[in-house]
């Protein structure tokens, strides 16, 4: 996958929508800055699936301490965290 901000954001959004759909929830209205756990579209297992997908899609293994709201709480945060680690 390309490390382009818009492309990353679109890919994360697409994955969130896909995971929510499996729970019969429409997550199309999720904003880039919305806090994903608080938005209610995904339960904990689905968020965990999102994180595992994120690690694999971007070849980006996370440490347990990386997994927090500041780093991964929103589409914006996930994008910034990835770009900072990969290009910083």
């Amino acid at each position, binding site marked *: 996958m390309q490390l382009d901000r818009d492309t990353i954001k679109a890919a994360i959004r697409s994955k969130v929508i896909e995971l929510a759909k499996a*729970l019969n929830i429409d997550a199309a209205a999720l904003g880039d800055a919305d806090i994903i*756990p608080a938005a209610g579209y995904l*339960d*904990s*297992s689905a*968020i*965990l*699936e999102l*994180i*595992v997908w994120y*690690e*694999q899609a971007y070849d980006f293994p*996370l440490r*347990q*301490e990386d*997994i*927090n*709201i*500041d780093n*991964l*709480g929103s589409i914006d945060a996930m994008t910034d965290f990835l770009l900072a680690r990969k290009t910083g």
Partner: protein
Amino acid sequence: MPSPLYVPRVNNNDDSVRVVELRVKEGEFVKRGQILGAVETDKAVLDVPAERDGYVLKILGRSGETASVGSVLLWLGEIAGEQMAEQTPAALVVDTAGGTERPTAKAREMLRELDLAAAAIPVAGERLTVADIEAWLVTQRKPARAPGSDAPTASERTPSVPGEYRELSGEERGMFSTVLWHRDRAAPGYLEIEYDPAPWNDYAARYAEQNKLMLSPLLPLMAFRLVELAKASPPINATVVNERRYQYHQINLGFTVQAGQTLYLAVVNAAQELTAARFIDALGEVQRHAMAHKLRPSESSGATLAFSSMARWNVSRHIPILPPYTSLIVSHAAPNASGHAVLGASYDHRVLSGFDAAQILRALAQPPA
């Protein structure tokens, strides 16, 4: 599934025998225990019985010829014309050098069912026995099956409706072993209580907020509470092997993880040594490994207690199968329309009474003070 019948050892000093006779032909159906032939040394003659029902697929031994002990005498299969494995299963390679570790027939059957290598298992006496395998399984904490119980495949006939055989995947085989242990070894009981999930939800929400957690800690905290209860009451954390109680010295908490089509029991080892925060991290890590289908062996076996939730699928009640060598698996489910939820316990009645299981559930229904 085709299985080989090996040339047996007649005595400890002879690594080869002469095939005296073979009483069957390829394509013939034989019954378990039926004498298929005989082998001899200059000291004794030994009948060779069939270890299972099945068709003679291929005869490799020849009457009058010398055969090495442990080599394949013939192949048996469930269906006439079944294809044999290209290689001898590692589990069934018999050590022909020493001779004293040759498995008994029942041990050999158990090795085949569990796909184990005889060479890896310490032998207490002159031959490898079912007791040796069971003792080793406890140290490895792998599932076993009841000796003498017929696995369904050994006696079932192919259905008359057209179909085809497919080998079980590793995960399916694991589930198969688990279900067989539950059926053949445990004395499973199940009970449940209704409880108000609100205090737990509030407790988990406060914990998440205080610790800025990304994921709800509700289920990890409930699983950790189970660990604490077992720590306070060690008899919960035990099993029975050969009619003796086996008290575990550590608590390995198994937690079910659905990863796509695969259900894993991800294991947090030595959970009794962890704080709640460390336990949540450790569980999160094994859950991620499970979801990526990358569980390490130590993270996918050896559970001594277990916890399972189907709340996310809105299942309001489920009765889980006991993982091998556990006394208890707690089942968590979704609240019903009235707001109450059910906590269930599948338990091994050889280890725990219904009263014990109910006490655990009642304590688990409340978050820590």
